[in-house]
């Protein structure tokens, strides 16, 4: 059934034709429009006005109701009336104690969920004393070497009560093992642990570029993590499928959603191929998208993504549970949009992007600090970012009505057009042999690099406007006095001292034995590596040692050189 009767549409078409001949023609005759053509950031053409006739072809079922298939209008039946989105600011730097202190500050400011950034050595499976970690320890995130560091990170924080997001990728299974070990040590009920690991390997090879092993073993590690977590920690989302990073390296809104759905399909095939029913793990798949600058395009992106996902799960994977078809998304505003020039403008940019995420129906959100174009954000910047979300949530009454833009001729047309384009891209991935193969071949990498260059050229030519940078430039306001978050120079040595103390006091023979067992298990594709990894972290094997043990089995990833 369509949304409007045919006679109503006929009537609108006739009247629009008359309007175009009379009022519109007169206006255009008087003064031409500023641009010959209008389009969204991802290139979908925009009309000057939309009417019911523009959505006459869309069946009413495509909209549905919130919390019901195909979830266009929202993930839950009551949305923010039942539970506001989670304010989840990511933080991580220095030693675990430093980050722990920031967490406590943010909880006190009103943050409702925790999120951890790890430093590069931790992400890449290196200990703090590895020569390759030179200069990087505790820099862009917190340094984690052993299970004790995870304990320090969450000191005084009740992990049964607050949900914790861990932005960890190639070494995710080790950090998960440490988290579980800490929870057990503290006597928590593992079934009550709530949180999310990022653990999205395919997007790493094409976007965020943190990797250890070749592509297929990395996907296998994720499979093991998903299958183990589904039983041991059923309230933890073992993966956050991260379109955000695809956008961060240049992908447009269509590529963000289509590519991440292609990765979703690959992971679901991997896990169902290992014998797990789709409904036993799909409800715990979670997503992470960007809220970028093109306001309406972004809102429609969230709506289209929910619909595409629901259809993939229902049609392709024959899911039966509605929870398996419900896309839940964490959103971060666009770091790419922030400028160093007149950096206070970043507050406005972020607030508008955050509003778009709310109108698009996000489940949790990180708003960027106004100083993130300089360095990791200061406490003051984080407070302003949290306040931005609180103002949207509590002062402007945008949370009372679900999907308030739903039914807008424009919003429904654009949602539909974006969905159609996403399906086209997904068909192309299928035709070319699927996501894993295309990641290995560098196909996604090339598409994203091309997009990034095209965007740069648009900015360079002044077609894409950045206020204060290539438009309304104020020579006087160039160099900003920004208080930058300081780096603790003592951080590396403390991590190294602790590593040495751990290695001196643990049962090294047992650690060697466990690492040997783990490597042996990795040679066979059908053993889940989590139980042995948890044993190893409890015996104080370090993150670097565990990752190195498997590198000997699988080797390292060789990057295709795509420019």
């Amino acid at each position, binding site marked *: 059934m369509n949304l409007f009767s045919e006679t109503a549409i006929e009537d609108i078409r006739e009247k629009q034709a008359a309007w175009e001949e009379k009022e519109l023609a007169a206006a255009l005759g008087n003064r031409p429009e500023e641009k010959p053509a209008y389009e969204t950031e991802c290139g979908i053409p925009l009309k000057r006005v939309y009417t019911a006739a523009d959505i006459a072809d869309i069946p009413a079922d495509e909209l549905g109701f919130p919390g019901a298939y195909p979830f266009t209008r929202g993930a839950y039946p009551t949305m923010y009336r039942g539970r506001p989105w989670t304010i989840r600011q990511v933080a991580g730097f220095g030693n675990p104690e430093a980050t722990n202190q920031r967490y406590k500050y943010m909880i006190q400011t009103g943050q409702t969920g925790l999120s951890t950034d790890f430093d*590069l050595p931790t992400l890449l499976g290196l200990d703090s004393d590895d020569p390759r970690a030179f200069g*990087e320890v505790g820099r862009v995130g917190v340094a984690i070497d052993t299970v004790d560091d995870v304990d320090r990170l969450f000191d005084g924080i009740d992990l049964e009560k607050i949900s914790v997001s861990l932005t960890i990728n190639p070494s995710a299974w080790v950090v998960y093992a440490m988290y579980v070990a800490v929870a057990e040590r503290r006597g928590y009920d593992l079934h009550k642990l709530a949180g999310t690991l990022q653990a999205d390997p395919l997007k790493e090879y094409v976007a*965020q570029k943190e990797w250890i092993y070749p592509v297929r073993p990395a996907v296998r590690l994720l499979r093991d993590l998903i299958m183990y977590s589904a039983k041991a920690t059923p309230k933890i989302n073992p993966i956050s499928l991260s379109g955000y990073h695809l956008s961060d*390296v240049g992908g447009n809104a269509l590529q963000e959603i289509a590519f991440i759905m292609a990765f979703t399909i690959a992971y679901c095939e991997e896990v169902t191929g290992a014998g797990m029913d789709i409904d036993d793990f799909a409800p715990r798949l979670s997503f992470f998208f960007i809220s970028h600058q093109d306001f309406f395009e972004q809102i429609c992106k969230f709506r289209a993504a929910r619909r595409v996902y629901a259809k993939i799960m229902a049609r392709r994977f024959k899911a039966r549970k509605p929870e398996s078809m419900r896309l839940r998304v964490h959103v971060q505003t666009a770091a790419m949009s922030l400028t160093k020039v007149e950096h206070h403008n970043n507050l406005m940019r972020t607030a508008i992007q955050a509003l778009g995420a709310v109108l698009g129906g996000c489940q949790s959100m990180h708003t960027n600090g106004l100083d993130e174009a300089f*360095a990791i954000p200061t406490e003051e910047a984080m407070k302003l970012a949290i306040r931005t979300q609180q103002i949207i949530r509590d002062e402007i009454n945008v949370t009372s009505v679900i999907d308030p833009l739903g039914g807008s001729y424009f919003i429904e047309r654009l949602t539909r057009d974006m969905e159609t384009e996403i399906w086209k891209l997904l068909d192309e991935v299928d035709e070319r042999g699927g996501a894993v193969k295309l990641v290995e071949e560098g196909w996604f990498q090339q598409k994203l690099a091309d997009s990034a260059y095209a965007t*740069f050229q648009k900015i360079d030519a002044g077609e894409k406007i950045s206020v204060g940078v290539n438009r309304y430039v104020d020579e006087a306001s160039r160099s900003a006095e920004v208080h930058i978050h300081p780096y603790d120079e003592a951080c590396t040595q403390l991590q190294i001292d602790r590593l040495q103390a751990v290695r001196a006091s643990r049962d090294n023979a047992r650690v060697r034995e466990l690492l040997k067992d783990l490597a042996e298990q990795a040679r066979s594709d059908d053993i889940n590596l989590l139980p042995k990894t948890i044993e190893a972290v409890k015996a104080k094997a370090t993150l670097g040692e565990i990752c190195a043990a498997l590198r000997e089995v699988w080797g390292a990833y060789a990057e295709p*050189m795509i420019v």
Partner: protein
Amino acid sequence: MNEASMTEKASGDTPDRDAAAGTIRVLVAKLGLDGHDRGAKVVARILRDAGMEVVYTGLYKSPGEVVAAAVQEDVDVIGVSLLSGSHVPLFRELGRCLREEKSEHIFVVAGGVIPEQDYAALWDSGVDAIVPQEARAELIVTTIRSLIAARGRV
């Protein structure tokens, strides 16, 4: 745009080199464990479109590896993009490796997320120019061309 915030250190170093080869050769490099390669790849294309010969190192290169690649490829300029905050120790080490290889004639241009308060430390490490984040293509190209011109090669 942004010419004002672009600072360039005068290079007093003009070694004897074969001036016959007219094309500027640039090694676009990623140092350390920083995976942000969007900017590096865009810069590589900009320089290529401007007629330079560009070699890209790929990710996760140590200062020693970058210098070895620069020497082997006989480049005029190493362009390093860094967004991980670890620029001060990594550029210091890069400068040390260049001196060790007696290759200080190779210019070093830095880009990425580099707070102005760290510029002085980078000059001390032997960085020849720092290109700001918002730089247009033209500024990136002229920065490199003027470094080479100051040396009297092109």
